[in-house]
């Protein structure tokens, strides 16, 4: 097991290098550039060749792109430094770290809500296949898939405000002061983000459950004289949920994308908001920093999912060699 984990970790390195190059390059390909924006936003600067050169030199943008890359990556590797924001001159690493908890809470609550809602409904749908309850459950799943979360989010913010003059809380109270108020802020956005994940999870759970219930070992369990409840919980559920774990791993990039939208709508000071700001300002260090962090995070959650899959499914555990 240990050598397997080591090998998997080692295999992550080339992926990371490749990802960092793409992140670094792609940002520079998109049209518009930071120098233009800096000049436009500053009343004292004129858009002359000279001024441009000066700004580019200050920001280090005048060097060839591969030199820029090497500088950037070695700062990260040796000093853990993602550079400074071009616009605000703050440390990108510090900004990300201070905003991370918000995004983390939003994302994890969304996944938690998705599972808590979807797994029971999926199991119910499979057990009572083609009944009214199954149809209702599946209709909700399709709705959840079809409704974009930016629309649902906007409605949830605006509608209560219009109707009752109430809107979901958005002011962050530090967790240490009042954990309940802190989490309360995340409930509506996490539910909205969770709803779209719940749809996929529910369908997956239902399909897997139906598949597993057809298996011969379920017949064996019934032939042992187990109550149907025990057949489902002890023999069917575990086997049906193994693939659902992989699904959670696949959710991670999707959830991160979702947090960008929902942080904006609910005005939560998370990494997603920072990313939006960065993109609007063509603030390369901010964007590349966040993308790199997302990349690392996705790679490692996939690794963790793969490893936990091995714990759940005994067959995988022994096929590692």
């Amino acid at each position, binding site marked *: 097991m240990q050598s397997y984990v080591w090998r998997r970790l080692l295999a992550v390195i080339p992926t990371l290098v490749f990802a960092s190059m793409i992140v670094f390059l792609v940002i520079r390909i998109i049209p518009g550039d930071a120098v233009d924006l800096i000049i436009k936003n500053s009343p004292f600067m004129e858009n002359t060749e000279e001024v441009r050169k000066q700004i580019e030199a200050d920001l280090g943008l005048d060097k060839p792109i591969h030199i820029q890359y090497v500088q950037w990556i070695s700062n990260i590797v040796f000093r853990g430094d993602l550079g400074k924001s071009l616009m605000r001159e703050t440390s990108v690493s510090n900004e990300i770290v201070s905003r991370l908890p918000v995004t983390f809470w939003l994302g994890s609550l969304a996944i938690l809500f998705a599972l808590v809602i979807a797994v029971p409904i999926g199991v119910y749908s499979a057990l009572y296949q083609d009944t009214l309850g199954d149809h209702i459950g599946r209709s909700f799943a399709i709705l959840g898939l079809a409704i974009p979360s930016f629309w649902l989010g906007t409605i949830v913010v605006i509608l209560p405000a219009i109707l009752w003059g109430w809107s979901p809380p958005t002011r962050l109270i530090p967790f240490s002061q009042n954990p309940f108020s802190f989490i309360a802020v995340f409930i509506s956005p996490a539910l909205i983000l969770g709803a779209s994940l719940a749809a996929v999870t529910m369908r997956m759970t239902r399909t897997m459950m139906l598949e597993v219930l057809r*298996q*011969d*070992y379920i*017949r*064996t*369990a*019934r*032939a*042992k*004289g*187990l*109550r149907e409840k*025990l057949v489902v919980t*002890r*023999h069917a559920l*575990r*086997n049906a949920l*193994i693939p659902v774990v992989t699904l959670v791993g696949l959710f991670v990039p999707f959830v991160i994308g979702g947090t960008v939208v929902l942080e904006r709508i609910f005005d939560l000071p998370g990494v997603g908001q920072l990313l939006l700001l960065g993109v609007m300002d063509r603030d390369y260090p901010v964007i590349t920093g966040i993308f790199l962090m997302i990349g690392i995070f996705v790679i490692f959650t996939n690794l963790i999912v793969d490893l936990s899959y091995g714990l*759940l*499914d*005994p*067959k995988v555990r*022994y096929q590692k060699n």
Partner: protein
Amino acid sequence: MKSELILDVQGLTTVFRMEDGSEIKAVDDVSFNVKSGETVAIVGESGSGKSVTAMSIMRLIPNPPGQIVSGKIHFEGNDLLSMSEEEARAIRGNKISMIFQEPMTSLNPSMTVGRQISEPAEVHSMITSQKASQMSQSLLDAVRIPDSADRVSSYPHEFSGGMRQRVMIAMGMSCNPKLIIADEPTTALDVTVQAQVLHLLKDITYKTNASLILITHDLGVVARYADRVHVMYAGKIVESGKSRDIFNSPQHPYTLALMNSIPRLSNQKKEKLKPIRGNPPDLSKLPVGCSFNPRCDFAIKQCFHEKPTLTTNNRYQSKACWATINDK
């Protein structure tokens, strides 16, 4: 041998409703019994209704599409079919256990073998969970799996097909059942392993004085391991009797055809194997008269318009057939 009846099936009829709304009789008016300590075989081609008979006794026919529409199944004097689900459940896996055809898929892949073996005893509250592992271990010993102490915590994929079938047998024995139903327990296994598994099964039922219903389509297995045999065709029993009698002198043309279609070691004349001609019956459009008539070498006029019933002739052998077998 005691001749006390342990199981008495009378007029069992199990139907399946098809997609198009029609019904097929997978088991049609089947009657037979099993005495204490006896091995009774049910033979027949694929689709003849052997498994459905077994699952009806277990009361595990999936409804829908299936339903037991008539008949009685007396087990130790009580009718299984008129019991509540809860009463039937208390017997299932406890006094009657079943071993399935597919050892590769009949075990839960994500549960240890030890846990699965002792599970029947645990659900029928015969043992506490502390004793469960110990019990699984001694059952693994009983089915002659080496290193039982380590093997209890293994998972099914670490076992070969033959070993898994031994595990299934161990599982079937965990409550000391009165009746074991083995549904083609060796069909999926290598020939050499088949004999070992059947031997084990026979040995274990003999030691515990359990009765055995052995479902197979191999008449050679019947001759060797069963006391009595019932031959099924298209949901009906077409011939029954002592297995030696039937093996030596089959009276029904279908039984004879089955016999000619299997290799026999005792066959000195090196006769060619003859597969049964024609196709297995389609239960949704059975012919008028005897269901076997399109494939029968001996059919007479009566066979095409009148259904034969099971009648006992000489030497306790019964057959449902109008014709007589004559050697050419």
